[in-house]
């Protein structure tokens, strides 16, 4: 039986528990035979690792890696809490 919910769960678990990724903040959606990954990670290598682990758990799905790398720019403003 092919249950997309379990495929999502399996992939999320792999992304969280596989030491190559250890990402709890990646969202996984399967729509039809399309697999979408979204979220923000710390560096480009992390983004690539997510694709690598996802590929091992997404037989027959077309992978769309929409994960972004967070920006590290110095702050452009400040919030006044006085």
């Amino acid at each position, binding site marked *: 039986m092919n249950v997309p919910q379990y495929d999502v769960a399996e992939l999320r678990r792999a992304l969280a528990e596989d030491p190559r990724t250890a990402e709890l903040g990646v969202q996984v959606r399967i729509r039809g035979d399309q697999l979408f990954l979204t*979220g923000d990670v710390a560096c480009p290598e992390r983004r690539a690792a997510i694709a690598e682990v996802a590929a091992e758990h997404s037989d027959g799905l077309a992978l769309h890696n929409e994960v972004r790398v967070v920006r590290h720019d110095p702050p452009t403003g400040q919030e006044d809490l*006085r």
Partner: protein
Amino acid sequence: MIRIGAVGDVHLGVDMRGTVRPSYADIAEHADLLLLAGDLTRLGTVAEGEVVADEFAGLDVPVIAVLGNHDHQSDAEDKITGLLTDRGITVLEGSATVLDVDGVRVGVAGGKGFGGGFAGKCGHAFGEREMKAFIHHTEEVAERLRTALQGLTADIRIALTHYSPSAETLRGEPPEIFPFLGSYQLAEAIDASDVDLAVHGHAHYGTESGTTAGGVRVRNVAQPIIQAAYRVYTLEPAAVEPAYPR
């Protein structure tokens, strides 16, 4: 005016050595201190802790950190705390520190925190051993935070945690995982003292701004939220009481 720099969830790995420090080279132009709201590492290894030390030690402003859940993944949290401390980074866990910033005493009390959920929709220390251990951990870290805050004498008082003390800064996260994102018990500890600002991380899909139930401002500085090296919040110490009767 005191300028608080803050970021959480930098998740440094050994593949990131040297990539982050440049963003903090001119930090003294923007902030008077830097708070790190946990999840400094990815897998919580000593090697990753060393990268954190290399990236954040010896900046032009004091650095005060708490650890996060990722920093506990490899059971090396004590070693990571030790090596950061050796390199001059203050690591809080149920403890507090006071900095002098141009004569203003800035006090920060902090700790990792934990989950359980928010008032009226939370877990209880009842049933299986695993359930009790989960909630007791929250109770313990919240109690230590409360004690640290109550012992803190300062002109500006900040609470620093990894987990969230407010459901408001979790907006954007699925409610179904709130018990894994924070606890009202942290807010109750914060609201038991006079706190000017509570800073946390952990909730990558949450919202930057919220308050505790008691009205203390809360800011979620998880890096995926702030999309910058750090945020800056400015605070002014409460006016000094005049020595003569009004």
